[in-house]
């Protein structure tokens, strides 16, 4: 038994299960300012070519992204 653990996504499970509300991104309104991406405590928002995507497998639904989006492009919706 080595006393060392190895990096792994989901070390505490699929944390998307924690969510009661889910952030929904309106890609039309999104200007790709990356505020949601940089503030996400869960590393659950990732950057694609020119937009961001939400990883619902791990997003805990805290709503920080929706609260911080300057364009109102993210809305929290009940699961």
């Amino acid at each position, binding site marked *: 038994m080595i006393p060392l653990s*190895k990096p792994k996504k989901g070390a505490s499970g699929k944390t998307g299960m924690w969510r009661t509300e889910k952030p929904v991104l309106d890609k039309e309104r999104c200007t790709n300012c990356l505020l949601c991406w940089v503030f996400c405590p869960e590393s659950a928002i990732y950057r694609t070519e020119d937009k961001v995507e939400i990883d619902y497998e791990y997003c805990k639904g805290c709503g920080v992204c929706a609260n911080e989006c300057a364009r109102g492009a993210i809305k929290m919706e009940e699961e």
Partner: protein
Amino acid sequence: MLGREEIERKKIKEEGTTVIETGNHAVSLAAKFARADVVAAYPITPQTQIVEEIAKFVENGEMNAKFIRVESEHSAMAACIGASATGARAFTATSSQGLLLMHEMLFAAGGYRLPIVMANVNRSLFPPWNILVEHSDSLAQRDTGWIQFYCASNQEVFDTTIQAFKIAEEVNLPAMVNLEGFIMSHTHMPIELPMQDAVDRFLPRREHLWKLDVDNPGTFGSMSNPEYYVLMRKGIEDAMKEARTKILDVNTEFEREFGRKYEPIECYKCEDAETVIFAMGTIGKESKRAVDELRNEGVKAGVARIRLFRPFPEESIKSIAEGKKIIIFDRDCSFGKGGVLSTEIRSVLDKPASSYVVGIGGLDVPYTTIKKCVERANGQKDEWITEVHP
């Protein structure tokens, strides 16, 4: 022209030599010969000379190491842990209160399974203040997952420290070498120093099985469920068992390379003895004189000096003790139970044994006292000897 000191140094390098040195210097020299990479230490009487000497070695380039002048013993062990976790060879030395302050970190070093080596200069514990020898400081660290050796001469201190690195690195456990405050730490005795290349041969660089490596990241000390926690703790116990055999192998290899023989228990006239004394450190050595005197008077006595306390050499103790009257000397006490060594030895015997707590706070223990204890031992009594000549 080389100065006297330089000639001496050159000679040591090329031929090996005998020096007359204190126990503390034996430790510093051993750390140098073992090529410790990182030394983190804090001064405390009677260990201070070790720190001073190593600082000198590092500053004058004799020792290619980083010396971290930490602000406490707790940080000394913390820094050793950090260094060892990167794969470096880490060393420290302490005593008494310093060792007690390290206690938490000793468990950490054992739990991470890091092969850190430490010299501890046995000293009494506060209060009241007393800087003389007692084994209570290191015996209080019994359960921390450290291999523990107890020495009785400066040569043994030097040799055991070199061996400790090899053993620790082979079984991935930290190792502590104990020497006695003042009786050894400040007493000059001859030490045969080996040639550096012989030590290098005996103690090659060994890649740590687990370390902090940016090319292969891993986390030490993650939260663990009982299912994993129990296996990691059992791993420490298993490594201790493995150490029992490894220590014998290392002793053999050491004897082959350097010609000096060590065993977990040093026996003197035990074979035909009717009475066997068990003791650690210099009391074990002083007991030889008592044994000789007793034998002159027709009492067939012998002494078994326990060098290795963890892992505890219980099978050897059983076989040495078989058919003999047993008398155990402790320079320590677990209040409410008595001598720690006695408790441990009795746990593997199936018969009564006499126990004496002696030499507390550095109280002198002459062979006459040991002899007197042997003469009046009845196999039942636990006794504190509170005078030099009881």
